[in-house]
């Protein structure tokens, strides 16, 4: 049995920041991470190899529903920060005030958050591209300007090299920032450890049972006796672990995502930079619709055209001239995460409403208009039977035919599966992440956002996690 003061489960943005904050405050911190420690650059960004090494289930994860939504989760030290696009939004005062009021969350004004955001931005070197953005990013800016829509360059956590151009940036992930800081402050980080369950007695977690992977097929059990537990395993694994441990009240019933529809756009000029993503987004319709660009290697272009890749073979053959774009939406529907007996992986389901379907089709239409306004020669929406659009007018007929089930949906933003708030009828944790009814177990990751924020959520997740650490250190309940 290993005695620890603070046990942090998961080392993504929430867990890494929690470990650093608490270790630097003099707490004895032990971090358990299921995946491996993989240095930035070991795998080509957004490649099939990276998916295999750094995504949970090699990216083969889906929320079942009509239609299903493919989702991805990072797995390994640093979690999603190691594989995502690195786009950063500071949570705005309107969003925070709205959440505080509607979900009965204490101390969530901009005043309560802003210093945490500033520290995070400094640590992660958040900023815009000092040099040139990628041609695929300029497409969004150009299309927005032509249509009179508001666009903006979204800052990233990135350090730029000599050229200062977008392609010369190096992401400041958790393995580059908060995890080394946690280690320097004395934290222990153990990788290759799957946490099986938390053992509760009364209002406390008295033991954490885990399995350490030693070699393929060989493992050993580990037991920890923690004073405090922070569960930071992400919006799918956190509720699954809590459910396996018998903590089920308002856990896993309100998963929220930003489903996105995608389209391939083909241009006369070469625009594709396969190992980078566009930094511009259309904000005209935010927070309900956000339009941006995705990683666009030939494999991802082909995937967007599946099952009609062969019909549009020129897209991948001539991949330098094409890029992938997305329109992400907020939804009224919700998902569920359910731990299943005898299985490690939970069942994830998501139910979209008819209104969500209309919103997604509407978002797709706007994206297609944007791409043609930016000079696209052809646009291929990623729908069940892929079609080639030659003008924006072609979309009118398609839009009338499209049903929700025809859309190929995916998401990389998962949250709200253990929402915070003082209303015990709705919230799984209190205003600072402590599980209702328990004294020493907290959630500090994307799970506790009360709803999907309508923007890249990592900045919001980290700012709230930092605030929760401060409250914990100050002894607030």
């Amino acid at each position: 049995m290993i005695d620890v003061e603070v046990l942090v489960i998961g080392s993504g943005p929430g867990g890494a920041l929690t470990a650093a904050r608490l270790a630097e405050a003099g707490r004895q911190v032990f971090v358990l991470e299921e995946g491996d420690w993989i240095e930035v650059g070991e795998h080509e960004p957004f490649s099939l190899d990276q998916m295999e090494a750094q995504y949970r289930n090699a990216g083969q994860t889906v929320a079942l529903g009509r239609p299903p939504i493919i989702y991805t989760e990072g797995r390994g030290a640093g979690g999603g920060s190691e594989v995502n696009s690195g786009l950063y939004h500071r949570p705005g005062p309107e969003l925070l005030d709205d959440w505080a009021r509607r979900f009965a969350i204490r101390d969530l004004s901009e005043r309560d958050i802003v210093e945490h955001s500033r520290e995070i931005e400094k640590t992660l070197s958040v900023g815009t591209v000092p040099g040139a953005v990628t041609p695929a990013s300029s497409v969004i800016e150009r299309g927005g300007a032509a249509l009179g829509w508001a666009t903006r360059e979204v800052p990233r956590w990135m350090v730029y090299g000599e050229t200062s151009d977008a392609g010369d940036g190096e992401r400041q992930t958790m393995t580059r920032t908060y995890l080394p800081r946690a280690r320097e402050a004395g934290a222990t980080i153990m990788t290759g450890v799957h946490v099986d369950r938390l053992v509760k007695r009364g209002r406390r977690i008295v033991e954490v049972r885990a399995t350490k992977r030693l070699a393929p097929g060989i493992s050993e059990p580990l037991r920890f006796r923690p004073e405090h537990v922070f569960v930071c395993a992400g919006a799918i694994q956190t509720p699954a672990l809590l459910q396996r441990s018998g903590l089920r009240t308002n856990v896993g019933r309100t998963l929220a995502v930003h489903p996105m529809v995608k389209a391939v756009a083909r241009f006369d000029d070469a625009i594709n930079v396969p190992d980078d993503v566009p930094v511009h987004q259309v904000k005209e319709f935010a927070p309900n619709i956000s339009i941006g660009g995705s990683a666009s290697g030939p494999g991802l272009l082909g995937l967007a055209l599946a099952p009609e890749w062969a019909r549009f073979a020129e897209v991948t053959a001539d991949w330098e001239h094409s890029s992938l774009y997305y329109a992400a939406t907020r939804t009224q529907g919700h998902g569920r995460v359910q731990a299943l007996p005898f299985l490690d992986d939970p069942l994830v389901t998501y139910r979209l409403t008819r209104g969500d379907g209309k919103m997604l089709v509407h978002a797709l239409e706007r994206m297609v208009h944007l791409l043609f306004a930016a000079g696209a020669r052809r646009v291929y929406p990623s729908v069940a039977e892929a079609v080639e659009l030659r003008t924006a007018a072609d979309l009118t007929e398609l839009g009338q035919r499209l049903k929700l089930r025809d859309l190929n949906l995916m998401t990389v933003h998962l949250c709200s599966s253990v929402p915070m708030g003082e209303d015990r009828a709705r919230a799984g944790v209190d205003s600072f992440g402590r599980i209702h009814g328990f004294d020493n177990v907290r959630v500090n990751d994307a799970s506790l956002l009360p709803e999907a924020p309508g923007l890249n959520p990592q900045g919001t997740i980290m700012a709230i996690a930092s605030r929760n650490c401060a409250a914990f250190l100050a002894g607030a309940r």
Partner: protein
Amino acid sequence: MRALPERAVAGFTDALIAERFPFLDADQQASTSTFVLSRWRVASQPVRLGTGAVATVLGAAAWSLAAMAGSTQGSGRDAAWGKVVHGLSRRPLPGISELSQFVVSLATAYAADRWPDAALASQAS
């Protein structure tokens, strides 16, 4: 020895790739099948259980066809899988299309990544 669901997914994948990706040569098809199967093995358990169950049912149908034709091994088995996949492509059945979608999506991502001009080259020839 592979477990039954894995054998069934492998048989289905080989046949579907042969049907849907005729422009890939035999080595490319084999490599693509290997990739799809490797990703199926690490897919989330609910995905694996669901697709494995569907493939097993289809495998039983393929085995029956092969048995009726007098050969449940080698080329007889492959031909039976081909008939099953061909039949499904003409008349998609609810619940089974997810398995086809799973295989085709992964196969497309891999093949387009490794041989981005393969499909175009076949059109030219």
